[in-house]
């Protein structure tokens, strides 16, 4: 079946294009363990990774706090303008990252400039859709009759939500939150504009690359890609 073989050959190119750089960065780093160890003791790096983890986690928590209720409303209610709201949720995916930074700065100006607030603001804008959509899909998968029955048995809507819908949608919401976390920690462009300081690992990679070259920035990249792939494996 020559057509399929041709297609498989063409397709393998993209698979290789994704897999090879990941493999290469680990392999090359393996021959330069000294630099990796040195990097792991560099207080700037440790601080930056800490900042990245903290801000991404804070972003995921904020996305959960607001995104889960929004997902529930989108799953359970029809209201005028619902399709516009749905579309808005998906907008951040298509806006260039540096434009996100400019828009946030134009809107909130100095109150977010160069602060943890700014990092989180940038991260939240680009990553919240994952939590909202996952929560909505999770709640959509919960039969509305379950809530209806719980209510005829005397539970308020809040109680029915806590006892039935939330536990049942939990795994979908959790994987949405993890995606939000991963997307948050991957953001660079918007953060560069809104909050170059406090330094995050993503930005530090860029800075070390500009100041000290590839060899200095590569170990941080290895640390970050390990984190990301670890998260990804948990997700699957």
């Amino acid at each position: 079946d020559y057509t399929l073989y041709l297609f498989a050959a063409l397709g393998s190119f993209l698979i290789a294009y994704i897999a090879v750089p990941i493999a290469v960065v680990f392999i090359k780093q393996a021959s330069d363990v000294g630099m990796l160890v040195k990097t792991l003791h560099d207080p700037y790096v440790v601080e930056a990774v800490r900042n990245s983890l903290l801000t991404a986690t804070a972003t995921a928590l904020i996305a959960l706090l607001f995104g889960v209720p929004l997902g529930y409303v989108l799953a359970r209610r029809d209201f005028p303008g619902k399709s516009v709201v749905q579309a808005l949720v998906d907008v951040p995916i298509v806006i260039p990252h540096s434009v996100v930074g400019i828009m946030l700065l134009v809107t909130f100006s100095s109150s977010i400039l160069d602060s943890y607030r700014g990092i989180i603001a940038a991260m939240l804008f680009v990553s919240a859709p994952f939590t909202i959509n996952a929560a909505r899909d999770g709640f959509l998968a919960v039969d509305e009759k379950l809530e209806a029955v719980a209510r005829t048995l005397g539970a308020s809507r809040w109680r029915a939500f806590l006892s039935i819908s939330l536990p049942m949608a939990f795994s979908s919401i959790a994987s949405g939150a993890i995606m939000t976390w991963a997307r948050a920690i991957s953001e660079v462009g918007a953060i560069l504009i809104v909050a170059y300081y406090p330094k995050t690992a993503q930005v530090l990679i860029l800075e070390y690359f500009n100041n000290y070259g590839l060899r200095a920035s590569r170990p941080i990249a290895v640390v970050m890609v390990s984190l990301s792939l670890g998260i990804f494996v948990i997700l699957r």
Partner: protein
Amino acid sequence: MLEVREISKDYREFHLRDITFSVKRGEHFIILGPSGAGKTVLLEVIAGIIAPDSGKIFLNGEDITGLPPEKRGLAYIPQNYALFPNMSVFDNIAFGLKVRKVPKAEIEWKVKELSEVLGISHLLGRKPKTLSGGEQQRVAIARALAVEPELLLLDEPFANLDVQTRGRLINEMKRWKKELGFTALHVTHSFEEAVGLGDRVGVMLNGRLVQVGAVREVFSRPVSEEVARFLGFENIIEGLAEGRILRANGLMIELPAEASGKIRVGIRPEDIVLSDEPLRSSMRNTFRAEVVGLEELGLLVRVRLKAGGVELSAFVTRSSVLELGLDAGKNVWVGFKASAVHVF
């Protein structure tokens, strides 16, 4: 106890129109209708899940139309039972009691008592997904009865069960009802459930409640052609009655009772017998008819016939079709008893 007054509601493709009926304490009231009649919507309006467009619902004289479901005291059991998949059977049954903050010891005692009557004591630790359809149904009933509701709202409770389990559970439900003494409003499309369980029955067609009455009465005296057709009287014949004879388009049909004037009668297709020779029997109504067409319906075949100017349809088995050599154009004898003729 429950009084439904002129409820109307447009919901998706369903249109309830001026539904009025009442259920007495201790009664098993059946709403019988084909799928698509709006039975589930009516049940959800009564449960408080859907708000009606107009009309009122009273429970023990109190207007509950505006109350949320949790304030009504009616337990709803949807067709798929809607057991909480994230809880054990015990927690499912105990749910309503926990919400009411009933003391733990009392909850355990109550769950134990109910599960014994319903024969599910051995399932209390299981998750709903591991249960068979019949077991799920019992758990759903236990969960609903645990809160001692004024009224049980049952949506096609036997529809998802296989034929044998259904028959058994219909009989058991009679026993539970005696032992636990509840009032039930039960919607279904199954004649079997209506006949087996119903004290009274309301026939629902296209969003309207068209006839309410005791079960036997509704089945033997449908108020309209529409109801008759739904109850299986496929042959509706119009004619002029005189004494016990109906003259219709060239046929003379013997009636089960005297009547006069222009009337309509209904005959079930399964009550019509086909044969090669005129049947020598107690059947008073025997005619020569021509086969117009055949339609296979699973195990039965519907034979369309023309007798005089009247079209009839009769159900026969597949082997009868082969035996009688039925085919379009063939002439056969049709017969039915006077008692199979229902006048309305």
